[in-house]
């Protein structure tokens, strides 16, 4: 009986928002609970704990992922960026600014996940990743509103701020592209 109920622990290292953390975690602990409860990084949210809402989305080794479905122990050595790591030296990212400007949220609970997800969407589009609404899979997709809507659909917003979210992502995409063109 006891072996069945006694927690098993493991030592792991996580690089979170540029800071290295050595942690002892229960093997059952999700990356999400580890961030929120052990590291005090409560920006990432728990909406469903089953990968069905996207509120927990973080950048895991550079890619968006549901932190609730990721076991911390399985991501020993990973580099994680949470919503707390999106601003640089107190300067908001283009997406963060656009979310405020376009009112891409109400209650704000899904917002950290939306922002991490959107950050990755811009990167994925840059790399030419297609989506379910990409007509020609052979070409490079253009990040229009339909593409943004499909790509952001893993992040539910019960307040229904989607119209603002889509505008914000579009605006940030244009801004990012313009800056790159300048550079």
């Amino acid at each position, binding site marked *: 009986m006891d072996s069945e109920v006694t927690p098993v622990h493991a030592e792991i290292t996580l690089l979170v928002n540029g800071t290295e953390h050595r942690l002892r975690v229960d093997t059952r602990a999700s990356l999400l609970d580890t961030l929120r409860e052990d590291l005090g990084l409560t920006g990432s949210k728990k909406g469903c704990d089953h990968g069905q809402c996207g509120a927990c989305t973080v950048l895991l080794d550079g890619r968006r992922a549901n932190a609730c479905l990721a076991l911390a122990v399985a991501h020993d050595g990973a580099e994680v960026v949470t919503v707390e790591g999106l601003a640089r030296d107190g300067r908001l990212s283009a997406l963060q600014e656009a979310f405020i400007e376009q009112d891409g949220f109400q209650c704000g609970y899904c917002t950290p996940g939306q922002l991490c997800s959107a950050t990755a969407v811009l990167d994925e589009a840059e790399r030419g990743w297609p989506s379910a609404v990409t007509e020609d899979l052979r070409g490079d997709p253009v990040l229009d509103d339909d593409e943004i809507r499909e790509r952001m659909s893993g992040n539910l917003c019960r307040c*229904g701020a989607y119209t603002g*979210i889509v505008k914000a992502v579009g605006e940030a995409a244009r801004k990012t592209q313009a800056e790159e063109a300048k550079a």
Partner: protein
Amino acid sequence: MTDRLEGREKVTGAARYAYEYPLDDPAYAAAVQSTIAKGEITEVHADAALRIPGVLAVLSCENAPHLHEVPDAELALFQSRTVSYRGQFVAMVVAETLDIAREAARHVRVDYVSEPFDARLSADDPRLYKPDTVNPVFPADTEQGDPEGAFNGSAVRVDATYTTPAEHNNPMEPHTTAARWNDDGTLTLYDSTQGSSPTQEIVAQVFGLDRTHVRVISPHVGGGFGSKGTPRPNVVLAAMAAGAVGRPVKFAVPRQQMFATTGYRTPTIQRFRLGADADGTLNSIIHEVFEQSSTLTEFAEQTATPTRVVYQAANRRTSHRLARLDVPTPSWMRAPGETPGMFALESAMDELAFAAGVDPVELRIRNDTDREPESGLPFSSRNLVACLREGADRFGWEHRDAAPGGHWEGRKLVGMGVAASTYPAYMRPNKATARADEDGTFTVRIAAADIGTGARTALTLIAAEALKADADRVTVEIGDSSLPEATVAGGSAGTASWGTAVVRACESLRGKMNGSVPPGGLEASADTAAELDARDEYARHAFGAQFTEVEVDADTGEVRVRRMLGVFAAGRIINPKTARSQFIGGMTMGIGMALMEESVMDPRFGDYVNRDLAQYHVPACADVRDVDAAWVEESDPHLNPMGSKGIGEIGIVGAAASVANAVHHATGVRVRDLPITPARLLPLL
């Protein structure tokens, strides 16, 4: 166009929600749900759970502390052995970590004696009865003239039955409480609530405390849509757990458990009879509603109340019949009453328009009224017709071919629909203080809640205007029961109710200031109870009109909303930016209601089986394409100092009918049972 004041906090993750406050050595709770729908608990076996390393306590009806005075039976946690519905909390585990608590909860074995139960709503259930009132204080039944006779004698008649399913609020933030008993015997709660003052009052009653010994802190709340309008069992559970282990305890209801324990919209069965002259002028309106509550609590949704408000007819009847079933307890969900009621009324009006050969917009204009039909009171303002005309104009309604069905674009059928919206402009008494400091800044305090509505921002704009000061010199403090007492963020009454108290406090402060602020500052307070008592009698309601264009895939029955426009008349709009989002958010939830939201009751078990966000579908980003909201200028001197009506709920009212009417126009098929899924629509195409 003011950005949300807490925007930066929300986009950087700095905004704290209830689970996220740093607590000294917190413990974690997990709840055990009943696996029977009705019966008695014979024994709770806690030993296996207690043997798990890290488990601190198991509480159930066998050892829970006695609660003092419980105003809501849902909050009488572990106070009896009776099980009233499947999924009811029957025990809890408190442990060092969440993983341990959750696992230990699976090891708590509860023995029951199960009894026969009934969880199926039907219109011929012998247990249906007429409640004394429907939520909150409306008569269950009303009647004027000879509704049956007038219906039978009418040239054009519609007699149809509509059903809406149970729907769950599903705010993104689960119902959450972190509780701490302080050394002086006071209780601090970080809670996801729509009202810190009402929660404070109820929790004080439940635990037999002086009200001032309970403090509820909730500056940010991750949505509620009514389900956090009253304290749910999580509040009592966390406080009880913290008392039991002598440490702060955190508890968030897991999403699956929310489907039984945090409220939902009752399913409804609604029969409508509309009788009209050949030109569509209504003679008779009969609206009969059948709906459910639990055996634990009577919650009677006011489904027929909008029918008492919207259209003229000399002969009319509304009725509500309620069945107390062995089901989880329904409660408020965004525009309770108006939302399901207006789906039925506005679908029936669409059917009448078709039967009478009258344009649906014109039919509604033809049945407009300048007095509230049942009360006879004048409307303080009513601009339904302006909304219909403005919306029709902007949406391109004149291009709509009147005949339903057959509007093909490839394999898609395309159609347009319209529906009216309405919601009462409620006001409740509130208190506020306003303070001026020597440095030229102002602080306004009120225990209001911002659950995403933009209340913090709107109240700041209201205060700045009343103080004749720049908004950046005004700080509004909300979300804490230690602030002046405020009513719940509900009934779309928040901004109007709180705002009035804020204005009065600010006016009083300005009177005291007399142009200058003395050392130490000045403070003034307001209580709007007397002011509200003295108001003239008017029928106060917001109105709107919603236009929708859908495409229906003829091969699959998939319905997608191509574009949707809501035009509203809701008094003065305080902050266009957040108001637009509120309207659109309501309409988006209406799209969900129309096309996908349905909690499926399995009457053999007595619970809702699709109890997560993969199976209970709410709209995703891809479902919301071109959705927009606009409003008509409306000046109404009979409301409040701001001239505002509420905007939080009207967006969902009528939205589902607008979509369903568009589906009918596209396909010629009338779906009277929501939601309009491929399963329901395809067989009819």
